[in-house]
């Protein structure tokens, strides 16, 4: 599934040049700087997992760096642990704390994440400065140098190599955590936050895992720094470390581990140019961050990707999606109010397996509200919903999706960074199943194209393919024919008929009567949140209440 990414060669060449220059310069001072670059690069690679891949501005990464440094210093100085197992402690303590922090923080969005994590970082700084157990304002002195099998790696090339092995380890871990199907799912969770739950993706597990991984990586960086300096003070918990990591991530490019290494190599040596100028380098970091976010929103890695595009993964052969068939959707007394407006008022109906039920009604009659309630995106209001014998109205949208309820959207959220295949595989049990779904919607030949390059009709097809890839028994569709040409509508009609014939239950909201009436086995008409008519297409279309409420008022297209 992996295609060769030629950007790797560019980065490898850059690294080679960097090390060659270092060997040529060769003085201890240059080696110290290069070691420091590696230490920050490790923590920044971890930060990319949360900031880049989850899209959460978690301002606690600097604190986890500091906690790693403290964990190592206290373990070695106070408990007499040797440095190598000390490093393990420096990774595990922040990782565990990261997972603990993530449990509440993972439920938050946007700036609340920033607030909560900033508060945590501030707490860590206050505690370290004021608790005597942690060394108080003076910190912890006398951290022993790193020794492996009796060989002292305290400084120079040995320490440099040890740190850069850590960089390689962090890159490998980050790459593993964001590769393939998991990477596509992370991108879907980040860029399609409404569609993701309807595809069965639950952000909690990913967020806790990524927080722990990011915090552990930060701890490795912090532990290595403690070994490198031999001393840890509360300064390591100051916001300066955090903004350095943020600047590296922003300049390197959202989510890119290698970009972060390149940005660390550019930014970390800067303070040395500003010696005797106190923290003047942070002005430059601020300027670099600002320039990057305005001029290069995708950072160095994004600029490189424009010259050497990331190749889309090579999709596997086509397989089959095992459908869960023969399950009906039943809705009993569904209701929903928005303030004083009654959007749904005791709506009941059944969509049997193998059938297509059309849901019609004027704008504002409650059609999309009904879909939102059934799929679980909206969990406020009364009524019972059953998927076969399972009552689903208390379940999360992701749980409902995993039980076989899929949904297409009127305005689908498609992650722009993914290929067509990746968009679908994020929702599929396997690559083969994703290809089968793409085949059904006629997009299989475009599997490697960027999803952003698709036109409106193809985006709809992609959204449907993604829903089908979950292997649903019940499929909810919101205006699937809107904006399609006559030919595309015919293809969609026959596809929907086939999907029903295979045993799925389809609920289709649609305005276009000449599309829906011949397609649907039954039609339900809503008006002001109530069912005013139900029956075959002919009887509903002829119903006088329907004609006044809906058909008569609106031009039948």
């Amino acid at each position: 599934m992996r295609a060769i990414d030629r950007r790797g060669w560019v980065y490898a060449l850059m690294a080679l040049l960097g090390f060659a220059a270092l060997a040529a310069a060769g003085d201890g001072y240059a080696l110290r700087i290069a070691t420091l670059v590696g230490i920050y690069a490790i923590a920044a690679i971890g930060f990319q997992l949360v900031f880049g891949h989850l899209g959460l501005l978690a301002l606690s990464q600097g604190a986890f760096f500091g906690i790693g440094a403290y964990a190592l210093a206290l373990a070695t100085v106070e408990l007499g642990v040797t440095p190598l197992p000390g490093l393990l402690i420096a990774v595990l303590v922040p990782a565990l704390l990261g997972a603990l922090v993530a449990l509440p923080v993972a439920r938050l969005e946007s700036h609340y994440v920033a607030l909560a994590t900033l508060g945590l970082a501030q707490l860590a700084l206050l505690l370290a400065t004021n608790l005597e157990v942690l060394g108080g304002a003076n910190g912890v002195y006398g951290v022993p140098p790193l020794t492996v099998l009796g060989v002292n790696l305290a400084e120079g090339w040995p320490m440099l190599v040890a740190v850069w092995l850590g960089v390689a380890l962090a890159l490998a871990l980050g790459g593993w955590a964001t590769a393939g199907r998991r990477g596509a799912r992370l991108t879907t969770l980040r860029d399609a936050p409404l569609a993701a739950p309807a595809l069965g993706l639950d952000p909690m597990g990913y967020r806790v895992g990524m927080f722990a991984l990011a915090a552990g990586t930060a701890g490795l960086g912090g532990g290595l720094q403690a070994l490198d300096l031999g001393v840890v003070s509360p300064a390591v918990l100051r916001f300066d470390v955090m903004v350095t990591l943020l600047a590296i991530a922003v300049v390197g490019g959202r989510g890119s581990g290698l970009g972060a290494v390149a940005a660390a190599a550019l930014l970390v040596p800067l303070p040395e140019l500003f010696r005797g100028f106190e923290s003047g380098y942070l002005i430059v970091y601020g300027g670099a961050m600002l320039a990057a976010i305005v001029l290069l929103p995708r950072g160095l890695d994004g600029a490189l990707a424009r010259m050497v595009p990331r190749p889309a993964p090579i999709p596997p052969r086509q397989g089959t999606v095992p459908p869960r068939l023969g399950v009906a959707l039943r809705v009993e007394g569904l209701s929903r109010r928005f303030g004083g407006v009654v959007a749904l008022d005791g709506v009941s109906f059944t969509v049997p397996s193998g059938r297509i039920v059309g849901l019609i009604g004027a704008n504002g009659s409650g059609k999309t509200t009904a879909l939102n309630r059934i799929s679980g995106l909206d969990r406020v209001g009364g009524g019972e919903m059953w998927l076969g014998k399972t009552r689903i109205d208390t379940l999360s949208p992701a749980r409902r999706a995993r039980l076989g309820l899929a949904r297409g959207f009127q305005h689908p959220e498609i992650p722009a960074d993914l290929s067509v295949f990746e968009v679908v595989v994020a929702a599929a049990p396997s690559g083969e199943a994703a290809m089968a779904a793409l085949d059904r919607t006629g997009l299989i030949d475009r599997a490697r194209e960027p999803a952003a390059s698709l036109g409106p009709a193809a985006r709809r097809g992609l959204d449907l393919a993604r829903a089908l890839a979950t292997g649903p028994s019940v499929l909810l569709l919101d205006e699937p024919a809107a904006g399609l040409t006559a030919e595309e509508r015919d293809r969609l009609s026959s596809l929907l008929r086939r999907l029903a014939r295979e045993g799925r239950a389809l609920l289709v909201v649609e305005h276009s009567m000449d599309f829906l009436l011949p397609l649907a086995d039954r039609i339900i008409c809503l008006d002001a949140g109530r069912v005013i008519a139900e029956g075959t297409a002919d009887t509903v279309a002829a119903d006088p209440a329907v004609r006044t409420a809906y058909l008569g008022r609106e031009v039948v297209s």
Partner: protein
Amino acid sequence: MIEAIPQLLVNALALGSTYALAALGFVLVINAVGAVNFAHGELVMLGGFVAVGLAATLPETAVLPGLIVLPGVMLALAAVGLVLALIGYAPLRRAPPVSVFISTIAIGLIIQHAVTAGIGPEPRVGPPLIGTGSVELFGAVIARQQLATIAVAGLLLVAVHALLKHTRFGRRLRAAAQDPVMARAIGIPVVLTTAASFAMAGALAGAAGLMLSNQYFVAPTDGAVLMLKAYVATVIGGWGRVWGAALGAFAIAAFETVVAASVSYLVAEVLLYVGVLALLMLRPRGLFGEAEGRRA
């Protein structure tokens, strides 16, 4: 302890009214652009330093030094607010909110360290509003600065209220905050209201900075904590609710004053953060929730 109660009350009111000014500016920007201004604390801090600088130009004998420099500080910080909007927000209008978070973090960093590099990291004392000394009130000795702070900050709060509530400009500001797309469609110049929001946020932050700088000093590193407090006030008061944020600010100040007086300032600060974390755990969208604008 009993005789200290009027003292504590005045302390809490004085601190609360300056926090309220800071929180008000913070919310105005949130409402105008839908994004958090992470440099807001630095604007408050800068207000303190501008006040120190301007006061140094006054003759030693000047009475009411703080009041004299107040308009100058507010004007200067309004200008800084405009520059912030121009550099940190305007180019990112169509970018996701996190881009604005980052650009304002960057600008805050630049302000903080430019001040450090220019003036040094030491805390400075700002000018008192109406001179030093104290008066006796209900048997308690109360600093004149405290009373003046309550009066001036109170006046500013009332002025902002009048501006938002009773002027055409205020109505436009509120309309643009509620629905920028619709506001633009009906001809409200959203660019102007946005710029005005940033300018007002700067001016109010400047006033808050001036008033804090006398009693609590001002240091270049103060920004982060001040921003967090404005942020916490906004979360307590209900996201985007202007007067909720002001109330939240008073709540924080009362809490801080009481805990600091009875235990220690450190414990007050720790408890504040722990409280906010607990609040976010229980109510992930703030105490009163946030208007949900998203649709499937």
